[in-house]
């Protein structure tokens, strides 16, 4: 008897077609040969519609977070849409103070999308999930007609367990608190800009995409009284701090000279007329804690490989208008505002 009656997917030259989303044999094959093979765990091996997960420990609550990823280009220095998804959702769960436990991943594929790229992305996701110790336990695949999708869109959802008594929130910042950042800013966004069609650079700035739950664990172990944790993704540090200022009803004053920015990222921003404070980060934390604990928090972050350049960058003040201000390295003051709309490189 022949062992199998199905010809294996041509992962090198094949492409996604509508049958792969049709629910029939082709779809099962895609799921098995691409997703199942890469993620391979007890839940996916069962092949059920849903994953049965153990209840959290007594006293623990659940945290859930979800993200859609539409990044273009799909592959960039330092990462790709695959690991970006995994890291991003793990981080959203972790900044709530929860231990990330499980991930779900749903894919919308465009007809014609090369299987080789799909395999590469999925392999990257699997590697990231494995390294982080957070399995992808369930998922979904759909295929849309050519022209109706940008190659691939991925949505990841994560669940984590939040220990009793821990309450991290953007609404917790208080006047007198210290604002800390875990490392240098602007790397992910500039790595992406560097690859985009219109703007061609030749020096490699690598995305900082990383899973931060280990770093966060270390930080919270050292300073359990940390008030706010957030990762400054789209919109950069400026957006994140403005969000927190709004949520907490406070003002923030930053010290520009203290904000770490890699010299190359700064130079790339000069070329494009962009401000590093508005650029997305995918492997950095903003932390706000009582002033008395700031030194301990910075030390804990610096002791971890992902927090080597952690620094205090400002303080929280009372301000009914909730402005985020900055003392410039030059000596004057200015506001750090949300960016209006999409980031358009300044020409002037």
């Amino acid at each position: 008897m022949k062992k199998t009656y199905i010809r294996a997917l041509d992962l090198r030259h094949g492409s996604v077609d509508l049958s792969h989303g049709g629910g029939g044999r082709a779809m099962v094959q895609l799921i098995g040969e691409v997703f199942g093979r890469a993620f391979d765990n007890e839940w996916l091996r069962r092949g059920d519609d849903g994953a049965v997960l153990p209840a959290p420990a007594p006293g623990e609550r659940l945290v859930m977070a979800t993200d859609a990823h539409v990044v273009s280009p799909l592959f960039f220095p330092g990462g790709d849409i695959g690991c970006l998804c995994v890291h991003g959702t793990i981080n959203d769960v972790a900044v709530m103070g929860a231990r990330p436990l499980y991930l779900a991943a749903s894919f919308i594929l465009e007809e014609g999308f090369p299987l080789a790229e799909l395999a590469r992305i999925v392999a990257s996701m699997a590697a990231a999930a494995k390294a982080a110790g957070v399995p992808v336990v369930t998922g979904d695949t759909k295929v849309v007609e050519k022209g109706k999708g940008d190659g691939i869109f991925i949505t990841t959802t994560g669940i984590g367990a939040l220990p009793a008594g821990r309450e991290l929130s953007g609404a917790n910042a208080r006047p007198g608190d210290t604002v800390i950042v875990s490392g240098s800013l602007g790397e992910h966004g500039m790595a992406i800009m560097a690859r985009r069609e219109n703007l061609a650079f030749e020096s490699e700035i690598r995305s900082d995409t990383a899973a931060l739950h280990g770093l966060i664990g270390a930080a919270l172990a050292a300073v359990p009284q940390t008030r706010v944790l957030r990762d400054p993704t789209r919109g950069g540090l400026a957006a994140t701090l403005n969000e927190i200022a709004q949520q907490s009803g406070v003002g923030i004053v930053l010290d520009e000279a203290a904000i770490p920015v890699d010299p190359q990222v700064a130079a790339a921003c000069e070329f494009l007329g962009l401000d590093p404070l508005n650029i997305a980060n995918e492997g950095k934390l903003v932390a706000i804690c009582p002033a008395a604990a700031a030194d301990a928090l910075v030390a804990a972050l610096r002791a971890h490989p992902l927090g080597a350049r952690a620094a205090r960058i400002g303080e929280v003040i009372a301000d009914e208008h909730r402005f985020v201000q900055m003392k410039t390295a030059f000596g004057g003051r200015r506001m750090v505002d949300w960016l209006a709309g999409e980031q358009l490189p300044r020409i002037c």
Partner: protein
Amino acid sequence: MKYVDDFRDGEIARRLAAAIAREVEPGRRYAFMEFCGGHTHAISRYGVTDLLPPAVRMIHGPGCPVCVLPIGRIDQAIQLALDEGVTVCSYGDTLRVPASEGLSMLRARARGADIRMIYSAADALALAQREPERQVVFFAIGFETTTPPTALVIRQAAKLGLKNFSVLCCHVLTPPAITAILDSPEVRDLGIVPLDGFIGPAHVSTVIGTRPYAGFAAEYRKPVVIAGFEPLDVMQAIRMLVRQVNEGRAEVENEFTRAVTAEGNLKAQALMAEVLELRSEFEWRGLGVLPNSALKIREGFAAFDAEARFGLRYRPVPDHKSCDCGAILRGVKQPLDCKLFGTVCTPETPMGSCMVSSEGACAAHYTYGRFRDIPVTVA
């Protein structure tokens, strides 16, 4: 970064601030206009105003080409994309400027217009070369800094014999704009805008040199100091202006000696003269119709003139009734004086171009400075 960080040094800034404070004559007030949008942006972004003594006031001038680009010209670009099916290539700043019928170039994209952001004129030319079936129009705006690249790509297109590339030329000139301000009733007769001198544009001057400003100093008795782009350059230039005013001088001085010479870039000037020529008149947003203030493409390169190729007509479009961009561009009003500022008109919903371009006085103030309008106690 060499030649960048040095000119942003906070320690030197403190010393210059002290020097300016020392040189300001007691009881005397100084008002200087920084013509160039790049300087407006630098002043806001670095908080230079905090380092100046209260006696020195900076007035934001109209040197922001996006700000002075009339709605009618953006309408032309949108018309090309929507009606003629042309691919329009534009610098980023221009994409969000509000035009007629609630459109901007960005919004026109949502209606199917193929409008692309480019970083360099060369990108537009390259697109036309790569795709001969595609009709490409480069929306060329800017002062003299940005004009030589436009002239270059037109000449290159001619050499290549491209049939699918043309330019919508909206380049404007700096000296006529300065003249318009100096001749405006508010400055000349009414003294509403007390103008003691100008900070001259940095990079425009690398192209045109310092000679064109001599007329202003002589005829209008206003000192001009050409300043580099970094905040220390701006402060040094202010110091030089204060000194000129104190000494009763009205000269053209050059702070930006590392990049600006008396004659400027002769090669670039020759190139511009070869491809472009003066328009007899051109409408500037906020300044009205000015004679001999803008450029058009010469007859010999008419094949690359989008206005000729597509038979475009210019239709002037008035500003929103309550929009004070015009007065703000001329230094007569400040952003806070405009009824629309911060209420109806914000960077997300700009009513006029002073708010769209990050160098416009309103956007700069909103983004970097509006916290000053409301007293906030910093611990």
